[in-house]
């Protein structure tokens, strides 16, 4: 469960990076993103990815850094597959990772305290 938190943060980050692009946003929501929406998406993306890096390195230093790179690789692959082949399922996918994020944050919070 603990490993799921930094990984889900990575997934969200790449998801937001993808959505911040005009063509992918249009595929999912059928309208162009406004400048404000893009800004929000990009900030969320950067914050999640940096948080993910921080969590990984905090847990296991050098090994954690490598894990973070691995998470980035896997997340980028998953997002790539969704946006190229399974565009219609993207909304469901986004919901799923938000749920996983919420659960793992809860777990992390409960264990950390």
């Amino acid at each position, binding site marked *: 469960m603990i*490993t799921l938190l930094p990984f889900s943060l990575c997934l969200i980050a790449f998801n937001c*990076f*993808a959505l911040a*692009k005009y*063509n*992918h946003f249009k595929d999912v929501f059928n309208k162009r993103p406004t400048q404000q929406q893009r800004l929000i998406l990009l900030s969320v993306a950067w914050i999640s990815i940096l948080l993910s890096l921080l969590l990984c390195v905090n847990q*296991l230093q*050098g*090994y954690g850094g*490598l*894990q973070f*790179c*691995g*998470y*980035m*690789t*896997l997340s*980028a*692959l998953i*997002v*790539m597959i969704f*946006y*190229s*082949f399974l565009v219609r399922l993207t909304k469901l996918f986004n919901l799923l990772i938000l749920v996983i994020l919420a659960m793992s944050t809860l777990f992390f919070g409960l264990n950390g305290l």
Partner: protein
Amino acid sequence: MKGSFFRSMTWLHTWVGLLVCWLLYLIFFAGTISFFRDEVSLWNQPSIHNIEQQTDRIGAQKQQIITGVEYLNAQAPNAPNWRITLPEERIPYLTYGFAKPKEPGQRRASFNNSRLDPNTMQPLPPFVDTRGGNFFYRLHFDLHYIDVKTARWIVCFASLFMLIALISGIVIHKRIFKDMFVFRANKGSRSWLDVHNLSSVFALPFHLMITYTGIITLIFMLFPHPVNTVYEEGMTGFFKDFSPSNPINNKAKGEAELVPMKTILDQVYTKWPNADINRVMISNPNKAAATIMVLVSPGKALRDQTPRLIFNGVTGELIAQTDDELTGSKALYESLNSMHTGRFAEPLLRGLYFLGGIAGCIMIATGCIMWAKRLRERMKKNTQPSWGLKLVEGLNLGTLMGLPLATSAFFLANRLLSKQVAERADKEILAFFLTWLCVFIIAFVKRDKLQWCVMAAINSIACFSVPVVNALTTEGNIIQYLRNDQWALFMFDSLFLLFGLLFLLQTEKLRTGLQTKKRLHISTQEQKI
């Protein structure tokens, strides 16, 4: 300047890539398999398939070492070297070995090894002579059938070209962020380019890391100059500083009783409680020059040189050890080296390393294919293909379809060769290379879509047959592995089934492509009539 830099980098990327892409595919292919070297060696060795998981692996080590020393003392009290290799997470058996006297011309003494089941402490059924995962590990930097030093120089320069290709690739991929998740299917060479870009970008940290660190593992062969500049005695002087050794009593003469292992182990556990001991090496046992070296697993730390304690074998005094705290430079060097082999990786990270390796293979394969397609497009209509195009297409078919087939042949040979055959390990390797050669011969004769389709079908059959032959020739099978939690073996068989399926999909795609071409050809013939 930017415009022409871009053009020169494009030119550099394609040329540097073309010169070595097939060798790099071999290196990446064998290297990716090597991440699961221990699992492959396990699969290759049916005698150790059914060893149960130890309930307290680390706790049992003390007794295993003490028993080992007693055993070796009884078996070979005057051997020059004893070696006790304890079971690890991925290597389930215990080995007690002693060195046989060196034969003339041998660089290193060979060992007489007794392998035991650590749960029952009973000898295991005799091992089959096979290189297992070590074949792929050595293949990816020592190559095979050529002198090791030459092979390593070639691999070093190929890896340097890979690094240059990566850097130039990043420079020329202007739309690296725009196109990051874009894949356009069924658009011919545009799709190939998309796959090439995607497989390079999504695993870019991995590719840069593995290439850079790969060269670093061979750096002292490539650049011995700093060592020779700083140390008058050259490499010997450097290694004396770099690796701990026993200078105190290793030249002593005469016999002496070996200190009891308990004294040694108490010191080890005082220093490192809960130490996970990998190996105990005793040189010159029962002599005054006895040295005992205890190697402890570094766990998840990014260490390349296994942490060790070196004791005087007669008095039990601690003589030397690896540094507890590494200096910045040492930490840098050790991290770089350890990152390449990834020996510290637990299953999750190891799986991610494997994923990166596969991405690398896809990146190189699509690069090779795009080159062939580009050459073919530039070819004028109704002319014969140039020898350059024939060479590129032939090498593509031979390498991209030949290597997987050769791998399946290697594992089939492991199961099908009789146990008593002489030089069995070399024969398995010969099966690998002969199969590869056959594919090259086919590619030499003809290399159209039909040949690709046929090779894909053969590959599919070969991949499917590996788990089947396994079930027929050993006690277990894939379903049993799942039920008994034998995960390594289950994953191995499953991966072969998965690749069999992927090759089947490729066969289908190529077959429909061929049929469409045939139909178009027939309809244009009809129109002419």
